[in-house]
């Protein structure tokens, strides 16, 4: 893997100029050993993280949460409440850190921005015709600009899966480049929607494509299709960002999203990050969890560690 990437080092920046070069490169990436990836991910999930290490992992995981609400039923009041929770996840305990970011639809960005201003909590907005991405490019770009103007400093875009699966890599590449430009200073997270990509090989190709085009983060899923983030998919993406940094020197973040509901799951992901890409990524700037119900479970486990008594969901806010 690393060998291939290194040999391609010199011409990586040129790849986006032709469909053929892009295809040759992406299809030249080594295939993913499906059984191997699944076993490795499962094996890393068996590590036992206890006491002080667990407390540290829980606080880190809280700081990595992108507290998300992406519902048709979102109201200004609901997202304001969510943003308030992001600032002080556990009102009973001032030592509890704030979350990494709040993630909402573009229309809800202004309401969240009011609450988060100056707090250090990032404001992410999905854009580019989330979740399907099936809209003309100029509509997607307008969507992105609107979200940035309203105050979002992180944009979660979806790739054009239709084009990707049809093999039109250049089109996907150009869309990401254009969206990145529309983002301005805002960070761009590229959602691969791995549940629709069918194979780990495709996940690896899509990861490289997103990174080559300038994505600051690669994110597994929208949370709107049945198969969301899984440990093996995240492992493949972590390997991709590791190899990409080795090849280009640029570090890209990873965000698994959807289906991560318990502290146990979150800690398994942190173990995987540490073992695959190392401590450089164990930071909210480089690894995030896209989740909503995960936060309450983290808070309950945190309370268990500080009080010694098992907590109950009745004592934490409903999102």
């Amino acid at each position, binding site marked *: 893997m690393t060998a291939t990437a290194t040999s391609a080092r010199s011409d990586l920046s040129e790849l986006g100029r032709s469909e053929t070069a892009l295809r040759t490169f992406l299809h030249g990436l080594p295939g993913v050993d499906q059984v191997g990836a699944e076993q490795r991910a499962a094996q890393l999930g068996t590590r036992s993280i206890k006491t002080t290490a667990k407390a540290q992992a829980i606080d880190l995981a809280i700081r990595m949460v992108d507290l998300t609400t992406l519902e048709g039923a979102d109201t200004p009041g609901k997202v304001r409440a969510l943003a308030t929770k992001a600032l002080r996840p556990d009102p009973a305990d001032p030592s509890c850190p704030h979350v990494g970011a709040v993630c909402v639809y573009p229309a809800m960005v202004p309401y969240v921005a009011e609450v988060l201003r100056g707090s250090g909590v990032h404001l992410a907005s999905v854009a580019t015709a989330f979740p399907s991405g099936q809209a003309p490019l100029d509509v997607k770009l307008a969507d992105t600009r609107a979200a940035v103007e309203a105050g979002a400093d992180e944009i979660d875009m979806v790739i054009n899966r239709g084009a990707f699966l049809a093999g039109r890599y250049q089109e996907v590449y150009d869309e990401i480049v254009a969206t990145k430009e529309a983002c301005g200073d805002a960070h761009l997270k590229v959602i691969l929607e791995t549940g629709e990509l069918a194979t780990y090989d495709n996940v690896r190709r899509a990861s490289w494509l997103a990174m080559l085009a300038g994505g600051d983060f690669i994110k597994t899923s929208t949370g709107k299709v049945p198969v969301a983030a899984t440990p093996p998919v995240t492992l493949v993406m972590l390997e991709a960002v590791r190899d990409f940094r080795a090849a280009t020197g640029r570090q890209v973040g990873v965000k698994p999203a959807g289906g991560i509901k318990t502290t146990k799951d979150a800690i398994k992901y942190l173990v995987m990050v540490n073992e695959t890409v190392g401590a450089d990524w164990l930071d909210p700037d480089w690894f995030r969890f896209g989740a909503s119900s995960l936060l309450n479970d983290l808070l309950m486990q945190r309370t268990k560690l500080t009080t*010694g*008594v*098992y*907590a*109950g*969901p*009745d*004592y934490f806010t409903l999102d």
Partner: protein
Amino acid sequence: MSERVAVRKTYKLFIGGKFPRSESGRSYIVQDSNVSLASRKDARDAVVAARAAVKGWAGATAYNRGQILYRVAEMLEGRRDQFIALGVSADEVDAAIDRWVWYAGWSDKLPQVYGGANPVAGPYFNLSAPEPTGVVAVVAPAAPALLGLVSVIAPAIVTGNTVVVAASPAAPLAAVTLAEVLATSDLPGGVVNILTGKLTETVPTLAAHMDVNAIDLTGVTDAELAAELEVKAAENLKRVLRPAPADHDWYADPGVTRMTVLLETKTVWHPKGV
């Protein structure tokens, strides 16, 4: 042909409708059988299973809950010999079966007796309805092994509560065998969860657990432990049922206290209009 070797039974825990071993992997020996020694984490898992079962069980119709309790009685009837082989007397098995039937009959009657229309000084319909408390932790008495156990489980679940039962450390075999009866009685998984092992390991965890709504200390014989458990239970204002007196007669008419103490009354005021 070699002589046949009998297959011995492993007595495991009963959590969420399944029979897992203790996560700690430990066991202890009672009447020449290996019995799981439940840990604090098994108690935690049992509460999660019990909580998950509350919605479906409390939401089931009273008639349906009653039918399921009758079904438990039927299944227990079919397994009489198993309990007798464990040393439970035939009279006690009969009494235990009758107790299921007695409580089953209460399922759709209790709300009528303990709820209803209240006369108030104003133009309102004022209605009270008893509702289940939620997750109840139960410490089962040591003797009588089967009748005592049934007499603490049935009144808690008939009204829609779910229970985590700490079986008596001295008499776990009847408890696990009763779990086999429950598992084959249409009772949804998680409504009854049974832990075997030392009370000092599991019960303090249950008493302190913030997601447990009531605790029944019937089987606690140590007064100091009972006091400690009550203190822990006070943290989230659990309903507490005090330990049973040593001379309690389990064969007598049980009365309705064990059911009513685990209920909460909801009262609704509704304007009468014209």
